[in-house]
């Protein structure tokens, strides 16, 4: 039988506020246990929650970014259960009326564009951490994380493969960082997903019974966990066993999912509106203020890049993968254009910016991307500035260096040599391209004289011999000769 996979994701994005959602304690990661937990966070008798308006603003920003409805009022509710790292015995969340309702996320999956509908996004507080290691036979409690603001983003079951789920999660990850609501640090748990997975016979409408994979904190784990879970569910069904609704955990070491609890032992959370917090009103003025401060979103920027810089769709897509990349691209382009305006104005073929932009895009999506990838660092940690890169690219544009030399310059800039100044590096390494035709002719003459056999071969019709001669000239110039000029001069000299 052919099976269809159905996936919905619940994503917890930690909001990037300085203080907690209901208290003034700091949210910074990595402090000594229980040093960032005030009376509210440890739930002393008599303390009360006060809503952090920064968290609300971030939720609104997210809602606007995904085209959702911002509910006013939205209601905070208590989710009641006992656990040592949940100090109040309830988590303050939103239940019946979340602040964000609806919206969509559109992303690229392979060559096609896919849109996933969002159910909702609501504000809630994180719990603390139970530390089972380090305390023989006992459990340590660290409440630093208790009360950290979270936005739980719930999708509709619109994804049909692990690839789609990962693409959705990546797009969401890009977006929350783009609009500055979440730092997206997955190692620190700032962005983590639960995946609801079910399968059904292809072509059938009712959903299969789902199992929820909890707490996936990397895209790789998300992919592996879903793939495993799908195989497992199909096997079960094909062996004639029904799927039980359940919550499972993914073990990255074995690559398998493991049962945590079934629906039968599911909690009754006894949700009810939190009487300590008033219904959250979002006025039209507040909404407009947030809207006015919204940055240009990736989708819009991509379209603009294609129109304004005449970039290929694919290049524009890569450049808008993160706000840092897009900013780096635009800044580099701006500086390079300013530096090369005169030289390029003579070209007259394409608008000045577009020519430069294509060059910048090629370098960022090419050499720089592979370099970042190889070193496993993010663009925000790149050791060169847009200004430095622009200077190097200007030298290409004014033909001081060729592409091959530029790679050497980039290498040196990357290691911080000569303050990353392209001109100083070119001078120090003697890389400046030879574009003096007299000088090139001299070298060509020497090479032709020393390679009579290949000259003869070429004249006898062996085109291959020409390439060999070009190579000899480049070698003799130690790579500095302008390749185009070498070509032209050789052709001329070898002409019958």
């Amino acid at each position, binding site marked *: 039988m052919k099976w269809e996979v159905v996936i919905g994701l619940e994503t917890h994005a930690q909001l990037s506020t300085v203080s907690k959602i209901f208290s003034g304690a700091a949210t910074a990661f990595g402090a000594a246990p229980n040093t960032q937990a005030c009376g509210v966070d440890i739930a002393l008798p*008599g*303390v009360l929650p*006060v809503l952090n308006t920064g968290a609300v603003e971030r939720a609104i920003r997210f809602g606007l970014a995904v085209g959702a409805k911002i509910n006013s009022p939205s209601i905070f509710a208590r989710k009641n259960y006992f656990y040592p790292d949940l*100090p109040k*015995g309830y988590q303050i969340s939103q239940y019946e009326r979340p602040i964000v309702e609806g919206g969509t996320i559109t992303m690229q999956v392979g060559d096609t564009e896919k849109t996933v509908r969002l159910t909702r996004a609501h504000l809630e507080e994180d719990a603390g951490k139970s530390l089972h290691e380090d305390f023989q036979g006992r459990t340590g409690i660290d409440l630093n994380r208790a009360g950290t603001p979270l936005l739980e983003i719930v999708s509709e079951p619109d994804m049909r493969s692990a690839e789609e789920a990962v693409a959705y999660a990546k797009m969401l990850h890009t977006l929350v960082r783009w609009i500055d609501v979440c730092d997206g640090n997955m190692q620190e748990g700032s962005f983590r997903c639960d995946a609801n997975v079910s399968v059904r016979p292809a072509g059938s409408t009712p959903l299969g019974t789902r199992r929820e994979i909890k707490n996936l904190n990397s895209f790789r784990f998300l992919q592996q966990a879903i793939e495993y879970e799908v195989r497992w569910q199909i096997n079960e069904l094909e062996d004639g066993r029904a799927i039980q609704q359940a919550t499972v955990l993914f073990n990255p070491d074995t690559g398998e999912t493991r049962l945590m609890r079934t629906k039968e032992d599911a909690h*009754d959370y006894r949700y009810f509106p939190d009487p300590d917090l008033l219904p959250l009103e979002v006025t039209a003025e507040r909404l407009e203020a947030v809207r006015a401060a919204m940055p240009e979103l990736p989708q819009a920027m991509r379209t603009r890049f294609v129109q304004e810089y005449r970039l290929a769709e694919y290049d524009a897509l890569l450049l808008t993968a993160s706000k840092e990349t897009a900013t780096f691209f635009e800044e580099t382009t701006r500086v390079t254009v300013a530096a090369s305006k005169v030289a390029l104005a003579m070209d007259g073929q394409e608008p000045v910016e577009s020519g430069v932009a294509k060059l910048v895009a090629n370098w960022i999506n090419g050499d720089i991307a592979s370099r970042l990838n190889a070193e496993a660092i993010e663009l925000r940690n790149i050791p060169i500035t847009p200004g430095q890169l622009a200077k190097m690219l200007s030298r290409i544009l004014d033909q001081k260096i060729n592409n091959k030399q530029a790679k050497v310059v980039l290498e040196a800039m990357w290691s911080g040599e000569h303050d990353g100044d392209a001109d100083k590096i070119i001078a120090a390494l003697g890389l400046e391209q030879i574009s003096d035709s007299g000088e090139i002719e001299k070298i060509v003459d020497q090479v032709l004289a020393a390679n009579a056999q290949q000259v003869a071969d070429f004249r006898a019709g062996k085109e291959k011999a020409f390439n060999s001669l070009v190579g000899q000239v480049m070698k003799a110039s130690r790579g500095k000769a302008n390749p185009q000029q070498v070509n032209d001069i050789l052709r001329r000299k070898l002409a019958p």
Partner: protein
Amino acid sequence: MPQADTPAMSNATLKELSAQLAAKACSSVELAQDFINKINILNKDLGCYVTVDAARTLAQAQAADARRAAGNAGTLTGVPLAHKDIFCAKGWLTTCGSKMLANFVAPYDAHVVERCDAAGMVTLGKTNMDEFAMGSSNETSFFGAVRNPWNRERVPGGSSGGSAAAVAARLAPAATGTDTGGSIRQPAALTGICGLKPTYGLVSRYGMIAFASSLDQAGPMARTAEDLGLLLNVMAGHDARDSTSLERLAEDYNRDLAKPLKGLRVGLPKEFFAAGLSADVQKAIEAAIAEYKKLGATVVDISLPNMGLSVAVYYVLAPAEASSNLSRFDGVRYGHRAAEYTDLLDMYKRSRGEGFGAEVKRRILIGTYVLSHGYYDAYYIRAQKLRRLIAQDFVDAFRHCDVIMGPTSPTTAFKIGEKSSDPVQMYLSDIYTIAVNLAGLPGISIPCGFDGDGLPVGLQIIGNYFDEARMLNVAHQYQLATDWHQRAPAVSQG
């Protein structure tokens, strides 16, 4: 010059003490010491206080005297008071009447305590109360029942029974209390003192251990309406740490005390005078109404048609909120933890099983039940709808009257043990007070007579939202014309 240890001093009102301190007729230390001495003699028998700390009290009194010497004294600087043990007070045991918190020393001050301290008031101690404020007789306290100063076999009411008895027995000139379903007004009535439950949101709940958050409200307990106003002036005010605290300009709640009552429209809800009301109480209330007529008031018959539902509604909503509010008492971070347990669940069960008393457990069970899947709509949601109807009844009533009057409690103080085995009878003790909490309105109880057994009767005055100043005016004018509020139980004059 009067001596600090004369009976006159402990009989004095806040206003009188304020004047005497200002006139240097006594020092704050002398005054505090006088009360401490009296507490040492009487408290063992009456059980009003669960914690006294003479060193702490006297240190505060000394600071108050120094402040006065420096010329910075306010109206109530150096005047002592008692705090209900529901308010966190830094460095003080704060037990909430429970074994669960029998060892809990608060690391911070409640807003109310902070305000009283800032005014220079001197804390005499923490008063006994029904466990987590759940009770109408003060019998559910882990620290034992409080005796009514008018009759030691009787309850003082609850849950602010310790505060009420302390003020009645002259072991404090005033005290703080909290009122979720009548817990200030009912004990005030049963002990012959005055108590005011303000409009919900007027006094910050920060640092007040939560019972039912949407109903809980702190207020003053004292012997005169004027004193209630003085203390409310200190207690009330916006606090950003409580999201339900209202942002309002500061006001002097005693500003209208002298206004004559001519033309005052007093609403009498027929539901307040129906079956269940004791004849003696009814007689005293009717006499009080007659007095008001003499003072120029007119009487309007009104109806609060949904009031009969208020006890039922309350015993869905209050336990629902309580079941969640009390979840933090799990033995993990503070408070009682069982000595022996096998695993986490066992630790929870034993710690909570040992730490909470029967009434608290009953309400946690009720609250958990009404919030459970499948029952939530039938109980919690329906109760919320009825709550709005009950509040609407008052809105309609206040179109025809300025204040509403009736009994605070259907009976006078009942015997210790008389209702403790019958929770429903106990719950009905708050039948006239609960609707006021559900509506979020202010209510006062003032003494208005005695029953055949010499037990005090309380008159309840319910005002419209934020009408505290008018209510105090109405109460004060009555107290100018009568002397019920000046009667003292014999034990207090020993």
